[in-house]
């Protein structure tokens, strides 16, 4: 076997830069376990949800970080806590509801009871039972409930978005995002209260990084997503920018359609297929919003766990929850803002037909990720090519570049030590 076809026993990145991505990055089980540890469980902030999902004290939502089930809950004093959904006693994943309201958490197995911060407050038969005037059984005298709370995560909130980390030494959320990404984050989440429109969830049989790559890849947008091009929402010459944080782990694809607002392309629905018109124009009843400040679409990838989407009037978070090296759940939370008119809410709901598991310009992303994984698995010694726009990692003022993918793997290599 020549060098070219050798599958390394110890994964080594045998290319000088990240314009080639070895397939073992998507297929090696040990690599995946290390990724969970190094990206999802330490040193990173992972998305858990929106504050508006748990508006009242006692409201909780069950979600996931990596493969770990966690619960986001609002305490009596209105502060938000995130705890691991795993009883400190025998390890049972005790919370079964996806959401709800509670005064405390109780594991049904032995009724260990925790307050909403995760502190153990009740252990049945802790002091044993009295029989014939004698105390029998129970926990040893030196059993300290304080040592047996739920696994408490560090929590960061910013303008209604909640992140958590198993790593209490993680840098601040603001440092984690960096000033460039923070600016786009604050554009979308500018402190206005959010209203939850609902959820969609899809299970995509592909490696979780393929979704990060997909939203860092402007190359495919006008090629795979024929619908975008057909109805004039996307043109290769749209004014656009590719932005990254200093580690290149996060990115923002920023683009401005035509002259930004209700121009010919949206009001007349003309496009390069001049004859093609929507039967019902309301799919593209787009209204400029002041907070956009220019760009009509900003797609943010926060490594490793989430995508924030603003594409015209549709705003969502897309949560990446890996469940194996070759599969992840992709959970969409569609929302609006407290000052939306009923018409704007309807507009956001209608435009949701473009995005999500059935979306005109998203269903096909799930499909190509599935088939990429299939192709990658059939010949694990090969490498993917990401060379559009050069071999370096540089921000760009156009959409003809795979620099953000190269940037992500630059960071990935450093963190993984390969």
């Amino acid at each position, binding site marked *: 076997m020549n060098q070219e076809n050798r599958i390394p026993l110890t994964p080594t990145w045998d290319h000088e830069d990240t314009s080639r991505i070895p397939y073992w990055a998507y297929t090696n089980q040990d690599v995946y376990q290390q990724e969970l540890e190094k990206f999802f469980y330490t040193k990173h902030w992972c998305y858990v949800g929106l504050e508006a999902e748990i508006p009242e004290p006692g409201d909780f939502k069950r979600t996931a970080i990596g493969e770990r089930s966690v619960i986001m809950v609002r305490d009596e004093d209105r502060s938000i806590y995130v705890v691991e959904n795993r009883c400190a006693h025998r390890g049972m994943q005790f919370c079964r509801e996806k959401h709800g309201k509670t005064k405390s958490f109780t594991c049904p197995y032995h009724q260990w009871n925790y307050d909403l911060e995760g502190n153990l407050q009740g252990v049945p038969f802790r002091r044993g039972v009295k029989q014939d005037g004698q105390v029998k059984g129970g926990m040893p005298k030196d059993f300290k409930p304080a040592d047996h709370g739920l696994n408490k995560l560090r929590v960061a909130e910013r303008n209604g978005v909640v992140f958590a980390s198993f790593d209490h030494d993680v840098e601040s959320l603001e440092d984690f995002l960096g000033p460039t990404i923070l600016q786009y984050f604050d554009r979308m989440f500018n402190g206005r209260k959010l209203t939850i429109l*609902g959820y969609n*969830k*899809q299970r995509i049989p592909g490696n979780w990084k393929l979704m990060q790559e997909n939203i860092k890849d402007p190359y495919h947008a006008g090629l795979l*997503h024929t*619908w975008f091009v057909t109805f004039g929402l996307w043109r290769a010459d749209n004014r656009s920018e590719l932005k990254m944080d200093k580690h290149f782990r996060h990115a923002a694809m920023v683009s401005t359609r035509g002259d930004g607002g209700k121009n010919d392309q949206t009001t007349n629905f003309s496009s390069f297929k001049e004859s093609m018109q929507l*039967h019902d124009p309301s799919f593209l009843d787009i209204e400029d919003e002041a907070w956009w400040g220019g760009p009509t679409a900003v797609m943010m990838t926060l490594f490793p766990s989430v995508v924030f989407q603003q594409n015209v009037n549709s705003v969502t978070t897309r949560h990446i929850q890996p469940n194996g090296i070759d599969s992840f759940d992709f959970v969409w939370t569609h929302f609006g803002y407290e000052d939306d008119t009923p018409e704007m809410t309807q507009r956001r709901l209608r435009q949701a037909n473009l995005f999500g598991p059935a979306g005109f310009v998203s269903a096909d992303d799930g499909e190509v990720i*599935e088939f990429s994984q299939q192709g990658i698995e059939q010949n694990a010694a090969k490498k993917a090519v990401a060379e559009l726009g050069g071999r370096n990692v540089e921000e760009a003022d156009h959409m003809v570049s795979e620099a953000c993918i190269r940037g992500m793997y630059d960071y990935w290599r450093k963190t993984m030590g390969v």
Partner: protein
Amino acid sequence: MKADNYLTLTQFYQNYAAIVDRGDWDAWIDLFTEDCQYKVQTRENYDRNLPMAVISLSSKGMLKDRVYGVTETIYHDPYHQLHMVSSPLIIDESDTLIVAQANYTVFRTKSNGIAEVYNVGRYQDRIRITDQGLKIESRHCIFDNDMVLNSMIYPI
């Protein structure tokens, strides 16, 4: 409801299933009224009174646009659907409108030939009695499975 009318309604439900199973999208559109609603939504959103749906169409024009997307623009793996639709349960009826529901199971078979349970739920329907026969004023597909197996291309 008279037995004859129930038979017509049952036939209508089975005809709908046969039409989507054979991918006859023009015939699918013809089953609806002009001002129709068609929605595919998770049970979670429905039960929590959240409006978000996987597909939400509110006119016959939007149905046509969806069909254009399905047939011309969305890239996807080829697959067949097979619907098993229960007998309809009549909720309410008048001379012009039937409110009914029925359970459904959709199997998906891709080109590897293995059929899988793809979507399980119920139709909640308002069916108008017209001179041209029964037409769907609104069909609300509420599905139990928490997630879509990758993507949803064809109507349910």
